[in-house]
């Protein structure tokens, strides 16, 4: 398995998109930190990158990579290798190289300019989102053999997680405005890793005070050690569940 991971990572590095992604993140992070006069503001700008760009790049790149590796996968499957090993290697290779890109592109500048709990939380969430969306992409790529269709699905999924879900939440909030929804909102945020990540980061920033009454409930939950542990378990589930489903599908897939 280690060997396949090695080949996957060298292959990803060879096609230079990940390098470009890293360079892009680096450029954005450094310019954000040097343009903003205080680094907390820089972190806020980076928040948008982490919550929007990172999932988008992760999901699309991973899906395209899986489609482009169809031959490679076929070649490997006819060899004496476990299918699980092949699929997990692809996942590990993708997740690792994208995470490294994030750690270099955002982690490094954050460590230089804003090495704080907030900064660390931000990087951790960024890595989680990278891995989660890689997994989701792999699951999506197994749904159809058609590459264009597959990439369409991944873009829709990204749209769903970054906008549509929140739109639905807003709709529900207004539909059930007469009911006390604060506690339910905590549960609902678990259904979207981007929202969960955003709330976890925001509660580490001083803007958390703006969250007011609802914020108090969020803080009472996400601010405690138990709450943070539960949140990370949920994020972990977001990593494991899509990958596990995709693995089962891949094991049964005809090539």
């Amino acid at each position, binding site marked *: 398995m280690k*060997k*396949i991971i090695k*080949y996957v990572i060298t*292959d990803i590095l*060879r*096609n230079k998109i990940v390098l470009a992604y890293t360079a892009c993140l680096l450029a954005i992070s450094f310019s954000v930190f040097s343009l903003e006069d205080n680094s907390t503001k820089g972190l806020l700008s980076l928040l948008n990158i982490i919550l929007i760009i990172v999932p988008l790049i992760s999901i699309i790149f991973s899906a395209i990579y899986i489609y*482009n*590796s*169809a*031959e*490679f996968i*076929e*070649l*490997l*499957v*006819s*060899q*004496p*290798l*476990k*299918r699980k090993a092949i699929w997990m290697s692809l996942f590990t290779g993708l997740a690792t190289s994208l995470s490294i890109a994030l750690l270099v592109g955002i982690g490094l500048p954050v460590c230089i300019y804003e090495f704080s709990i907030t900064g660390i939380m931000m990087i951790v969430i960024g890595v989680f989102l990278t891995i989660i969306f890689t997994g989701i992409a792999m699951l999506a790529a197994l749904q159809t053999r058609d590459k264009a269709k597959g990439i369409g699905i991944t873009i829709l999924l990204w749209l769903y997680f970054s906008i549509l879900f929140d739109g639905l939440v807003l709709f529900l909030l207004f539909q059930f405005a007469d009911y006390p929804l604060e506690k339910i909102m905590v549960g609902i945020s678990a259904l979207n890793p981007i929202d969960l990540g955003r709330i976890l980061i925001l509660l580490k920033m001083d803007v958390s005070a703006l969250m007011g009454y609802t914020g108090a409930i969020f803080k009472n939950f996400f601010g405690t050690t138990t709450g943070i542990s539960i949140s990370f378990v949920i994020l972990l589930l977001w990593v494991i569940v899509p990958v596990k489903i995709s693995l089962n599908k891949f094991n*049964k*897939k*005809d*090539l």
Partner: protein
Amino acid sequence: MIVIENISKQFGKLKVLDNVSVTCETAKCIALIGPNGSGKTTLIKSILGMVMPDAGSISFNGKSIQNDWQYREYIGYMPQIGRYPDNMTIGQVIDMMKDIRHTSSGFDEDLIDAFGLKGMYNKRMRTLSGGTRQKVSASLAFLFNPKVLILDEPTAGLDPVSSEILKEKIITEIKKGKLVIITSHILSELDDLVSEVIYMQDGKLMFKKSIELLQKDTGESKLSKAIANVMINSIV
């Protein structure tokens, strides 16, 4: 060596394999013959575990291949269309396969040498012609000295010289006591190789006969004629 029992496979509405049972023994060269879309490649892929049959079972050396992967160490597979990662070179592909797959009996690089692939080690896979890809596929199939060789249309796209080289290689391997399963459209090529024939049509196994028996039944000495005879008869 390979026992296939009642396997069926459906792709959507299309029944590709319909209750196929067949046994392949070692030290034979078996030709898998049938019209286009008769299910030959699907059968081969089922043996390799690349396609999961809907029903039935396949065993290799007495062990079911379901959820097993180690048996593939004994198989060398040459696909109909060899597809490789585009931006790897020939050398990298071969090295990678050597790296991933262990062998106890040493690498068999006869074909790599015979095809002169070493001189092209730095060429990227995406720049290769169909014929050169076939050469790479063939070389990889034989590289690990496997007990079983499964060759899907091995000579398609090869020039006559290379085709001859490959045939020679197949013959030597059969003589070493290996099981070789070949599918091919160009039946004339199989004449000197084949000891048994499996004939498939519409996902069904029509018959499995030794070449002698086939010649006797059809009264034709050439394989191509014999098969043509069979096909005409089956239509009628």
